């Protein structure tokens, strides 16, 4: 067990070194959320107001969550590369704990997510966004966002172990992630969508975390009285746990199947 933890920690260090050695990827990675903040916040923000309050205040929690969703692509690509380049074979032929790869990747992803959150929160404050309910509630919101990231990391690790070619990962992740954000409460209220789309949007795990974050940050929400919106914090805990319960065993199973 101690060996497994030690191996997992070494693997965490490995993935974090990737961040240090390839800072250009981080810059590219941040271009999307920063662009969304600026474009939606300033270009549309003046013309779009939700319940008479600042659209930017409304938008930022959504951008925070959306960034975590796109982080799934980096996870899937890294795992797929490791498998395809034979690095995983090397790990598997060594006395390294079998859990090290996934434990290491998910821990490293959480550290990455923390750095990303720090950058995003700073950007948010710079464009006039604020958390209004104190540090405790803000930390709770960040905690829920990171919990979602952990779940998405397992989805990403599963995707990376299923997709045969690392190049196809990005082709899959965008078509997967984009509708998930569009069909959520990140940009518009589900009530404004056609009924069936609105229902999907209400129950979308992304919407749950976004609504919970808005509530905990004290940012304007949608004021919806639908059940998922009323119980956003509960769903923001349940959804990620459910995703982990589904995708962690699937990913571990795929890893085991490499030996079939």
């Amino acid at each position, binding site marked *: 067990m101690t*060996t497994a933890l*030690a*191996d997992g920690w*070494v*693997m965490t*260090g*490995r993935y974090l*070194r*990737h961040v240090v*050695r*390839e800072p250009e990827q981080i810059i590219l990675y941040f271009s999307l959320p920063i662009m969304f903040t600026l474009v939606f916040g300033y270009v549309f923000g003046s013309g779009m107001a939700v319940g008479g309050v600042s659209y930017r205040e409304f938008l930022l929690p959504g951008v925070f969550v959306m960034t975590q969703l796109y982080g799934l692509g980096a996870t899937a690509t890294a795992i797929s*590369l*490791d*498998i*395809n*380049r*034979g*690095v995983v*074979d*090397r*790990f*598997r*032929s*060594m*006395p*390294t704990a079998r859990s*090290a790869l996934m434990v290491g990747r998910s821990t490293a992803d959480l550290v990455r997510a923390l750095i990303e959150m720090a950058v995003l929160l700073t950007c948010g404050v710079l464009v006039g966004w604020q958390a209004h309910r104190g540090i405790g509630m803000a930390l709770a919101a960040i905690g829920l966002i990171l919990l979602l990231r952990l779940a998405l990391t397992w989805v990403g690790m599963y995707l990376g*172990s299923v997709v*045969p070619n690392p190049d196809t990962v990005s082709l899959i992740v965008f078509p997967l992630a984009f509708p998930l954000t569009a069909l959520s409460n990140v940009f518009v209220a589900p009530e404004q969508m056609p009924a069936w789309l609105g229902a999907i949007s209400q129950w979308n795990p992304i919407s749950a975390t976004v609504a919970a974050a808005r509530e905990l940050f004290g940012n304007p929400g949608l004021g919806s009285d639908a059940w998922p919106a009323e119980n956003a914090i509960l769903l923001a805990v349940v959804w990620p746990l459910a995703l982990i319960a589904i995708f962690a065993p699937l990913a571990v199973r795929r890893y085991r*199947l*490499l*030996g*079939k």
Partner: protein
Amino acid sequence: MGPATARAAGREHRRLTVVHQGGQRFVRGWSADGGKLGGMTETAIVAEGLRKTYKGVAALDGFGLSVPAGTVCGLLGPNGAGKTTAVRILATLLRFDAGRVEVAGADVSRQPELVRDRIALTGQYSAVDGSLSGRQNLVLFGRLQHLGRRAAKERAEELLEQFDLTGVADRSATEYSGGMQRRLDLAASLIRAPQVLFLDEPTTGLDPRSRNQVWDTVRKLVADGTTVLLTTQYLDEADHLADRISVVDTGRVVAEGTPDELKARIGADRLEVVIRDQGRLAETAALLSRVAGAPADADPDTRRLRVAVTDRVDALVESARALRDAGIAVDDLGIRRPTLDEAFLRLTGHRADEKELTGHRADDDTIVNGEIR
């Protein structure tokens, strides 16, 4: 036990190995402590009746192998013969359907952790982390093999030095040339001095200089007592490195022996003569047949004649004298041993696709995600 003793034990065991017909091998001479001799096994690799099926297709079908400790065994065969599948099973990467495998004194299915502790694998592709530097890679693999932080760093420095990578130690591995990547890959396999090293086509796609470096490294390792299982589709590689060669075809070993034994099984040496004047081909053929006491073949296009000989030196001297006495101008004259290409044809009954057996291609039979691609 030092390397020299280990090697002696390996040699001793070579005499105890009994090889039966049809690729089935039985190893005699296991000592009372289960094949171990002071921590070192006498027979480093034993595989018996290995069977592995992918989606109804047999990748291995009764594969058997026995490699004495401290020797190099070459697995030679064309793409899809089952070489890579066999290596992946021996290296604990792949489960198998039937058979028995022991590597470095441990059962691969029952004690895979023990096996992993004693082996190293270098695959067809450089299995290093391209985003990390060479140094970081070696430290990482050292740490994942449970060396302490400082020990891993020290070992990395030693290996960088040994593999001539110190100058590029801090560059990302993706920026390395093919030869450098392969050297880094090999260095990563040697962090903890494995008892058994698996090399799956270690020189595929390498230039001759890098290839020679890999060969030198393998020779040094074996001199220090490491057992090496090498798969290759290059005949000269098996010829140069391997103490014994197992020829693999359609998932089983179809022939086994030293390179010389395999060549000898193909038949006699041949005298080959190339004459200058095509018009004297028939006359020369008659002359060579008389000297060698066997019928000679003649190829008018290349003006080349071949005849099987038994005594190499006599045949050479006497045919040279006879040709000179007859006044036949000779462009080339020599004794040729059969090539392993010819050996392969004879042993398997079909020609290994030329492209596969001698061409230097990078994409080979690879198994990714447990599927043959």
